[in-house]
């Protein structure tokens, strides 16, 4: 008994520095992550901001949720979010995989490096700057894209102002900004493919396309599936930074997503209750999807975050 107690104290003394090191991070995380989680109660209240986050508010059950269901803007935003996120996830996997396969076939290391440097670059620009560039080059009056389209005799459309084109524009410009960075992962995976397989295939007389199709692609299949599984956690994140910087009132019906909608009704119109309710819905769905995808990734691909 005595010995046990003593070793417990000794253990605590030995581990005390660890606890102390974690203290600042724990405190800050508690304040800025856990208190907002508790703050999700606003979703079930007729919230009056002046009374404060933990003030004496009136509970109103699910009123905020039914209010949202009957609000056409909210349903449009949900629909747009799913469509936009779906395409971003699909193309955000396929295109980097293709580009990585192509880059892998480049023999000149100079060319390969220049291409890589160029395609990663847009990723590092903020969405404000990239959107600024897009607004300029896609402008139907004087943008460079319009100029080029006129040269080949096409009447330039208003990419950012038409409800028909806004969604594809969002999807493709997002891919434009991020595909280069996505290729990193797949290039890394390709370097892990067993080189003796290529040698054997060369012996058997396989061409380059055949090797690509029968060796490289199956070789990175696991990574591709893993990345897709992990990407599922983002079904309700269609990219707030991008959309908020490119949207304008005339394309709300095709481009408004949950996050921009929450921002507008919450912080601009000060409808805290409904905005939080929508946030809670989003968090719950995201949490479910992320948990499931991490679980699947762990179970089938032995992926561990820590």
């Amino acid at each position: 008994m005595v010995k046990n107690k003593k070793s417990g104290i000794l253990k605590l003394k030995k581990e005390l520095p660890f606890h102390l090191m974690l203290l600042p991070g724990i405190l800050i995380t508690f304040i800025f992550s856990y208190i907002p989680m508790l703050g999700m109660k606003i979703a079930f209240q007729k919230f009056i901001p002046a009374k404060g986050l933990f003030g004496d508010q009136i509970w109103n059950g699910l009123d905020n949720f039914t209010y949202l269901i009957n609000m056409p803007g909210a349903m449009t935003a949900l629909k747009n979010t799913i469509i936009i996120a779906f395409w971003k996830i699909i193309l955000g996997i396929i295109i980097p995989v293709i580009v990585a396969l192509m880059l892998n076939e480049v023999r000149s290391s100079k060319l390969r490096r220049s291409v890589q440097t160029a395609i990663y670059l847009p990723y590092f620009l903020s969405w404000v700057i990239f959107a600024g560039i897009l607004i300029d080059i896609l402008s139907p009056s004087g943008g460079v894209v319009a100029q080029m389209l006129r040269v080949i005799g096409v009447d330039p459309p208003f990419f950012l102002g038409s409800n028909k084109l806004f969604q594809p524009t969002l999807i493709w410009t997002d891919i434009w900004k991020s595909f280069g960075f996505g290729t990193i992962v797949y290039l890394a995976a390709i370097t892990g493919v067993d080189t003796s397989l290529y040698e054997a295939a060369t012996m058997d007389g396989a061409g380059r396309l055949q090797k690509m199709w029968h060796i490289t692609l199956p070789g990175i299949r696991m990574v591709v599936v893993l990345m897709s599984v992990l990407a599922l956690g983002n079904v309700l994140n269609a990219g707030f930074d991008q959309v908020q910087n490119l949207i304008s009132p005339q394309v709300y019906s095709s481009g408004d997503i949950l996050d921009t909608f929450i921002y507008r009704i919450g912080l601009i119109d000060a409808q805290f209750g409904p905005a939080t309710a929508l946030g809670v819905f989003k968090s719950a769905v995201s949490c479910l999807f992320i948990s499931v995808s991490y679980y699947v990734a762990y179970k089938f691909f032995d992926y561990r975050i820590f």
Partner: protein
Amino acid sequence: MKKSKSKIKTSAGSKIFTFINALILILLALICILPIINVLATSLSSNTAVAGGKVAFWPVEFSLESYKYVLGKTAFWRSMGVTILRCILGVSVNVFLCVISAYPLSKSNKRFHGRTAYTWFFFLTMLINGGLIPTFMTVKSAGLLGSIWALILPGAVPVFSVVLMLNFFRAVPEELEEAAIVDGASQWQILMKIFIPISKASMATVCLFAIVFHWNSWFDGIIYINTPAQYPLQSYLNTVLIDATTATSAIDMDALALISDRTIKCAQIFLSMLPIMAAYPFLQRYFVKGMTLGSVKG
């Protein structure tokens, strides 16, 4: 690597493939670079050339007026200053908290009994978040609205970087630490004198994540800083580049004769891109390393 043995014979088909492949890739690279060149060319061209749609990828009627205008604007410099301050404070806080959180979490369960509980405490924040309004209310209740700390503290513990760092720490051989303990070193000394010096590569990665995060954030500036004069650069840019109503009113009439709204916007875009472009070679190298370290293991 596997390129060398295809030296045997290059068939015509293979040559065509190589050519088309290179062509498409160069095209993709151009698609990523040309918009930036277009913005630079527009910013360096005269108002009339831009308005006439004559500028594509080379300046027409070279003019530095728009740069003179932007560089003479106090608002631009002030927001740049706020961003630099934010980066210095934010990156120090992020990296410090990342290291001192990752170190204990990298210990085995036997060495540090609270490990699992602490890890879950951090990990849960990746799964659930309070959302915009509750987070805003929390920052407001903490009395941080209008302060630069509102931009730093909510994201002070970068969980993703902590995970990256702790995985790196884990790879450090345990013998090093045991030897130091025998020599009477405390845990703090072991962290500072052994772990940090040998973790330069991942420290650099974590640093760069933090720099890019703080340099590129704009939304928190908009919602937490109530005086536009104290906006960080990206928030300021959001109001002048994106929010069209403020943009036109921001230009004084005298300046309009020589320069246009568009050349000014392009000059601002280019000037704000410069620091990131200058750091880009380092960014690229370490991010590639960090990404491959952090995302595909096993």
